[in-house]
């Protein structure tokens, strides 16, 4: 059975909601499983995601057609290597406008590529509206929301806020205590390596806390991936 190649768009129309963290976690999840993965950073001003994975990411300037080619033409290659796009808030509109203009989503199905939008939640109504617009525009698009409790807490009414988003899958990234969260800023820290064999440079407490934090996140990614494979199996027979 042919497996569809996954193309993830981790996105938010707003800044500082945890998009890069989610893209990094997803990338490390695949690396932890020894799955080759390719990353794309759409933030040409501050390509932080690319700093974490310099060997396997490229920066794509979506305001330029050549940048669009370097992203979308590559995403359409069905090589079973997951592709992860960190869509910064500055590139959000441009990305989805281009997707519509060039008919990208229609082509993915023909090429055996499964696009997946991972929409980063925040407490604003405009973010929820953005997710609804995407789902209305492309009803067949696989979409899940990511609730990062540390980077973008939803407050007391989190359930009510989440209810504004399209009914779809949900990932929860738990909050980390500040000292441990600061350790994440180290671009030399590989979360996949940490899960496999903890680098001795980190303190025991930090290592253990990070592992405990990562495990449920990676488990959610794994469940999601399995669910997609099952759906894919139904589709492809």
């Amino acid at each position, binding site marked *: 059975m042919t497996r569809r190649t996954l193309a993830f768009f981790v996105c938010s129309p707003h800044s500082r909601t945890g998009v890069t963290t989610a893209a990094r976690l997803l990338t490390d999840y695949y690396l932890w499983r020894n799955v080759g993965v390719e990353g794309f950073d759409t933030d040409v001003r501050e390509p932080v995601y690319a700093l974490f994975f310099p060997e396997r990411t490229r920066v794509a300037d979506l305001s330029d*057609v*050549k940048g*669009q*080619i370097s992203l*979308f*033409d590559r995403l*359409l290659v069905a090589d079973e290597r997951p592709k992860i796009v960190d869509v910064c808030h500055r590139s959000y509109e441009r990305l989805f406008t*281009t997707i519509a*203009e*060039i*008919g*990208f989503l*229609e*082509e993915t199905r023909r090429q055996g590529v499964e696009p997946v939008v991972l929409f980063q939640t925040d407490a604003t109504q405009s973010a929820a509206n953005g997710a609804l617009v995407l789902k209305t525009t492309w009803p067949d698009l696989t979409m899940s929301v990511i609730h990062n409790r540390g980077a973008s807490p939803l407050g007391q009414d989190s359930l009510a806020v989440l209810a504004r988003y399209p009914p779809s899958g949900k990932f929860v990234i738990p909050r980390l205590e500040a000292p441990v969260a600061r350790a994440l800023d180290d671009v030399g820290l590989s979360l996949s390596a940490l899960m496999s064999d903890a680098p001795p440079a980190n303190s025991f407490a930090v290592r253990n806390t990070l592992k405990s934090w990562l495990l449920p996140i990676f488990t959610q990614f794994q469940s999601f991936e399995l669910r997609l494979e099952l759906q894919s199996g139904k589709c492809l027979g």
Partner: protein
Amino acid sequence: MAKKPVKITKGAPAKGEPASQGRTAEAPVAASSAAVRPAVIVVGADKGGVGKTTIARAILDFLSLNDIHARAFDTETPRGTLHRFHPDETMIVDLTEPSDQMKIIDTLNTSQAKVSVIDVRAGGLSPALQALDEIGFFDAVKSGEFRFVLLHVIGSSISSLEEIAEIAPYVADANYFMVKNHVNDTTFFEWDPQTHAKYFEDVVTSGEITIPKLSELAYEQVELSGAPFSTFIANQDAQGRPAEHSFVLRGYVRTWLARVADEFERVGLLDLVGEKRR
């Protein structure tokens, strides 16, 4: 070699331009008779660099996508640009030469192609219309023997408006459209209303056609490929072999061509050439 274009999925409608600013005639009624009268579409301008051949290429694609057999004449002698993109259906001619006029006009009724597209070289529109007038073509149009559509591609400068007075005597019985071509730039056509009105005193237009902008890189790549737009979209080279054109660029060209087709449909081009969509 025959190149089969892809069918175009219609995209979003073209960005709205205001309705014709000149006096607008009622759209001529399409023939209802079974016998289809041959149609001639002239694409021209006296000003150079306004994109006449691009429009002619888009028309050939549009007709082909609607299963309408068309032929084309390129007056850019000796080496025609239109011929480069559509070699199979294009003949290079000199419209001022009687022998070439015969190749076009005398074969209108006998050719299998019931639509003939003439791409007039820069500076050649007025002489071409004059030549057609001298051989009695416009009388034949008036008597209903042929259909005639003139697409006058205009630039944003005032000199384009000055051309209108020169061609006015020849367009009385034509379906005369002004074409604002934005394919290579974003120049905004904004003439002073009084100036505009002055130039349109003596001419009746059937409407305006607006050609939207196409990404420069996409346009360049189609140029380099030397293939029709629809062939480029289908990811084929000029010989119809599989190519490796960027999907992004093909996507831009597909959307652009769909918008251009929307414009041609909006003005009823298929009806005007006597062909309904099949």
